[in-house]
C-alpha cells in the first residue's frame, strides 16, 4: 500500500490530513502498523488538551509492543475516534481511514511544512537498511 499523496507525514510515522474545516486528523502510517502488528488497544488524548509539536499524546498497543503517538504540530485536540476503543484492529485493516484524534492547529503553515508522501517514503526506506 503506498502512502496517499494528499496526506502529510512525520518522521515518527504519523499521517496528517487537513479536513475541510481546517482541523487536522492524525493516525499512524501503513509502515507503522506493519511494524507493530495486531493492534489491541488505543489510548487517545483528552478533547481540549493543548499539545506542542512532538509531544507524546496518545498510545497504540499491539500484541507485541506499545508505541507512543506524537502531536505533529502545536494545537488543541478537538475530537477523538472512540470507535477504535472497541475495534483497534481497524488500524491494521485500514490505517489511513483510522484517524485517532483531530486537532485545530495553531498555525496551518506548520502542517504545510510537514513531509509529503515522497519525503516520508525516503524515511521509511532509510530505516529498512
Amino acid at each position, binding site marked *: 500500500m503506498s502512502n496517499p499523496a494528499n496526506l502529510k507525514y512525520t518522521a515518527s510515522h504519523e499521517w496528517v490530513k487537513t479536513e475541510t474545516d481546517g482541523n487536522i486528523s492524525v493516525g499512524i502510517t501503513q509502515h507503522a502498523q*506493519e511494524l507493530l*502488528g*495486531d493492534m*489491541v*488497544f488505543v*489510548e487517545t488524548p483528552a478533547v481540549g488538551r493543548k499539545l506542542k509539536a512532538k509531544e507524546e499524546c496518545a*498510545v497504540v*498497543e499491539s*500484541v*507485541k509492543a*506499545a508505541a507512543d503517538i506524537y502531536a505533529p504540530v502545536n494545537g488543541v485536540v478537538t475530537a477523538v475516534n472512540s470507535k477504535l*476503543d472497541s475495534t483497534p484492529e481497524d488500524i*491494521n485493516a485500514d490505517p489511513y481511514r483510522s484517524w485517532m484524534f483531530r486537532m485545530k492547529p495553531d498555525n496551518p503553515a506548520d502542517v504545510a511544512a510537514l513531509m509529503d508522501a515522497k519525503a516520508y517514503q525516503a524515511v521509511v526506506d532509510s530505516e529498512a537498511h
Partner: protein
Amino acid sequence: MTLKQTPLNAAHRAMGAKMVDFGGWDMPVNYGSQIDEHHQVRNDCGMFDVSHMRVVDMKGTGGRDFLRYLLANNVDKLTSPGKALYSCMLLDNGGVIDDLIVYFMKEDWFRIVVNAGTADKDIAWMKQQAAQHAPKLVINDHPELAMIAVQGPNARAKVWEALPGSRELTENLIPFSAAEMGTMFIARTGYTGEDGFEVMIPANAAPYFWATLAEKGVKPIGLGARDTLRLEAGMNLYGQDMDETINPLEAGLAWTVDLKSQRDFIGKSALLANPPTRKLVGLVLLDRGVLRGHQKVHTDHGEGEITSGSFSPTLEKSIALARVPIGVQISDTVQVSIRDKMLSAKVVKYPFARNGKGLI
C-alpha cells in the same frame, strides 16, 4: 554481527514471514497476523520452527546418578524409556541456569533439550560438573538437529499424515514422552498448552518435512504467537520469568523441585536455607490497557513486578505473570503502574487457557 539461521530460513521467507533478530537468530515473528496464528493453534494446528533450541545427549554410564545431582527435579521419576521430565538446572545459590526437558531413552542415554540463548552456558556447566561427578559420561550437543513443533488439537493427525509410518510408533505415546523413528525423534511435548509433537530431525531433512506439513494444510506460526500461547498456558519463559538471580520457588516452579527425597542436588541447600518471600501469580487486567514485563505491581503486602505480560487472544483481555510478595492471595485486586496511570488487575490462578479453552 551476522544472525544465525535455521535450516528453514529460506522457507520462512518464501512463506512471507516477518523476520526479526531473536537472541542472535534470524527468526519469524509472524507470517501475517499474530492473533490469527494464535487462534489457529488453539483451534486447529500450526507448526513452529524451534531449531534454535539445542539438543544435548548424555551417553555412557552414570547418567542417571549425575542428573539426580545436576537437576532440581528428580530423574528417578523417569522409569520407562521415552518418558520426559521438565526441570530447572540451578546454581549453588539456587538461581536458575536454565529450564529444560530431559528424556530418558535408555539407562545409558538421556537426551536434554535446552533454550537457545543459554545453550552454550548450559553445556559448559554440564561438562564442568560432569568432570567432577561423572567423568565417564559423554556429553555432546547436536546443533545439526532441527526441531519443528506441531501443536494444536489436530497436530498429531497431521504429523501422522506427513510422516508415513509415524502413527504406529507414536499413537500410544502418553503426554510428555518420546519415540525414535530412524534419525528422527518425536516427542509428545510442546510450549502452547495444546496437544502435539515436537519433532527433532536432521537439518538437511527439515525443509522437506516442513514443506510436507504445509502441503497437508498446517500453517506456519511465528514466535509472536508462540509467546502468547505459552503465556496463556502459564508456562515460564527463561530470561523473563526466571533467571540466575531468581530461584524456582519464587518463579512458580516449586512443582518441579523435588525437596522431599533424600538426594542432594545443586542448589538444594540454598533453597532449604531461604524460604521464598515472593511468588509468581497470574493477573488479569480489569481496566483497559495492556500488561507488559517490568511494570510495577502495588499490593497490600508490598510491591511486585510483572515478569511477562501481553494481550490474551483467547480471553480477549490483557494477562500477565507477576512476581509479588508471598502474602498476596488469589482474587485480590492489585494496582499496576502503566505509564502515568494506576490500573486495576485481579490476581488469578493460572494457566489462563489450554486445550482450546479459556480457564479464567
